């Protein structure tokens, strides 16, 4: 909004705004408050804000990476810290890979005419709607049985010698396995969203660089990439969000050591006796990175969202 004069609104309008804000933030605030309560306080439900805040729930959740042993715990059963690190590794690496690979492909689709361009662009558009649930069966089968280093092969044999195990080494149960499917899943979306940003880069800039003797890759990395930073930021946030929040495929592909945080939360929810305080503390920890992104980059998120839909 360029002009700084604001229209006066009537009080009912502000009442509506307050109600909307309350509805949007209420559930999140409720979870935050409950994560500082003991289960006794949550279940008795006495007095919303009158309670002794405690970080005990967070201590329970993070017990495997705390430098000290919390007094109230005998045994550290919830390995949240490890899962958090897994989530971080998987989300960061897959976001970085998706962005690099995706913007190269988007650039090729926008700027070059080549054989197979239409096929590539149509395929990208079509696979964008494939839901994770549809990928569950084939990915489970392939990652466990086909994408393996054979037990008779050289490399597989060497790995078995070094680490033991059942003989063949498969993608399932490794970080790389989950990263691969996340990159593949997010690529169509990233390519699609970045195309609309690359179109806007003036061709004359690229040609000027080419006249000065820059090769195609130099033009791309030195001229085009810096100009589409807002698009890259939007794409990065969306990719990170999906990789960070995804549950289904991660649960099919991970094993005990590569579990991510969403899996941990679902596993602890399905038990009969839910420990509300601890589970809400883990939920809050999982929600913090996306919340931080939203607060600092909401402009990019909104640009990305509208670019995706409007310029589709």
């Amino acid at each position, binding site marked *: 909004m360029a002009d700084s004069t604001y229209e006066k609104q009537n009080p009912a309008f502000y009442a509506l705004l307050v109600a909307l804000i309350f509805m949007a933030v209420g559930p999140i605030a409720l979870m935050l408050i409950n994560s500082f309560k003991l289960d006794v306080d949550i279940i008795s439900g006495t007095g919303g804000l009158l309670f002794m805040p405690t970080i005990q729930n967070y201590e329970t959740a993070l017990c495997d990476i705390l430098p000290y042993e919390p007094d109230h715990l005998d045994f550290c059963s919830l390995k949240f810290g490890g899962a958090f690190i897994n989530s971080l590794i998987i989300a960061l690496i897959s976001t970085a890979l998706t962005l690099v690979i995706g913007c190269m*492909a988007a650039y090729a689709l926008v700027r070059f005419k080549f054989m197979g361009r239409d096929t590539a662009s149509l395929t990208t558009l079509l696979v964008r709607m494939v839901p994770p649930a549809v990928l569950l069966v084939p990915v489970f089968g392939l990652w466990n049985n086909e994408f393996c280093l054979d037990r008779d092969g050289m490399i597989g044999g060497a790995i078995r010698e070094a680490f033991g195990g059942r003989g063949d080494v498969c993608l399932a149960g490794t970080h790389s396995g989950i990263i691969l499917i996340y990159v593949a899943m997010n690529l169509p979306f990233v390519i699609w969203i970045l195309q609309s940003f690359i179109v806007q880069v003036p061709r004359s800039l690229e040609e000027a660089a080419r006249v000065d003797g820059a090769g195609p890759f130099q033009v791309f990395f030195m001229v085009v990439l810096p100009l589409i930073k807002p698009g890259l930021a939007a794409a990065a946030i969306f990719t990170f969000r999906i990789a960070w*929040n995804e549950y289904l495929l991660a649960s099919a592909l991970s094993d005990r050591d590569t579990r991510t945080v969403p899996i941990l939360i679902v596993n602890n929810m399905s038990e009969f006796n839910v420990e509300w305080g601890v589970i809400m503390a883990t*939920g809050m920890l999982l929600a913090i990175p996306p919340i931080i992104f939203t607060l600092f980059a909401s402009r990019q998120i909104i640009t990305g969202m509208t670019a*995706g839909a409007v310029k589709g």
Partner: protein
Amino acid sequence: MNAANRLTPYMFMLPAAVIMAIALIYPLGYMMYGSLLDWNPSQSIADAEYVGFKNYVTLFYDPAFRESLGVTLTFAFFVVVLEMIIGVGLALLLDRNIRGMSVLRTIFILPMMIAPVVVGLMWRYMYHPTIGTFNTTLESLGLPKVDWLGDHALMSVIIADIWQWTPFIFILSLAALQSLPKSALEAARIDGATGWQQIWFIKLPMMMPILIVTGLLRLIDAFKVLEVILVMTEGGPGLSTEILALRISRTATEFRELGVAAAMSNYLLLLLMALTLGMFAFTKLQEARAARLAAAIQEEE
């Protein structure tokens, strides 16, 4: 043009093409083949027995699958219709020059960014029959309790999805509204159109192309919802909230029938493919129309 130049686009495309071929296209083909097999997780695909289209036929007559399909369609229908009405309505209402609009938009996108698993967790707590926020509030007002995740499970799940995704529609329609040409609105105002008339005859028709694409995007996403429902109800009680995505994952992991799950995935894929192609055709149509209009205007000049 020399050979190196001709190869450039392929070098830019190569990594993406390889990854998508290995981890999207090949798995989808593998699934199509797997859907023709009687296949359980302990078998490798080579040992599974070929049964032709038996899985598809079984599913077609399977009451549980039909119910699950019905739940999915009901869920998608209500979610998209209600979110469109509320989202567009709010956008029309809040499209004013007020202080702090950007803060407001930031707050509204928070629910979308949070993990579906966490959204499910928050709502499961709020719907809890005894300690949940809604029932304790009702109780303190002297009203009868509601069995949110029991008798009204589907409705509760729809409400949670509306909470999470209405902002998406809101943001997009607000953007559409603010990109409308000012001259048309100005002209209407001078001609004495009331607020309602402006909305009904000018704003909505002009936003329509974007609104349709937004609705279709949301519809496609509504078929992908899984985690929120998994955490809130696990598909229950009975099959009342078991949407297709959830049924696929249960068929694969609990019932251990990978062939059937693959066939079910194919049905879902076909449905989504039709929707995507519809959206694609629609945007192409719009572009063609815009191009024709532009050409007509140029001729007149």
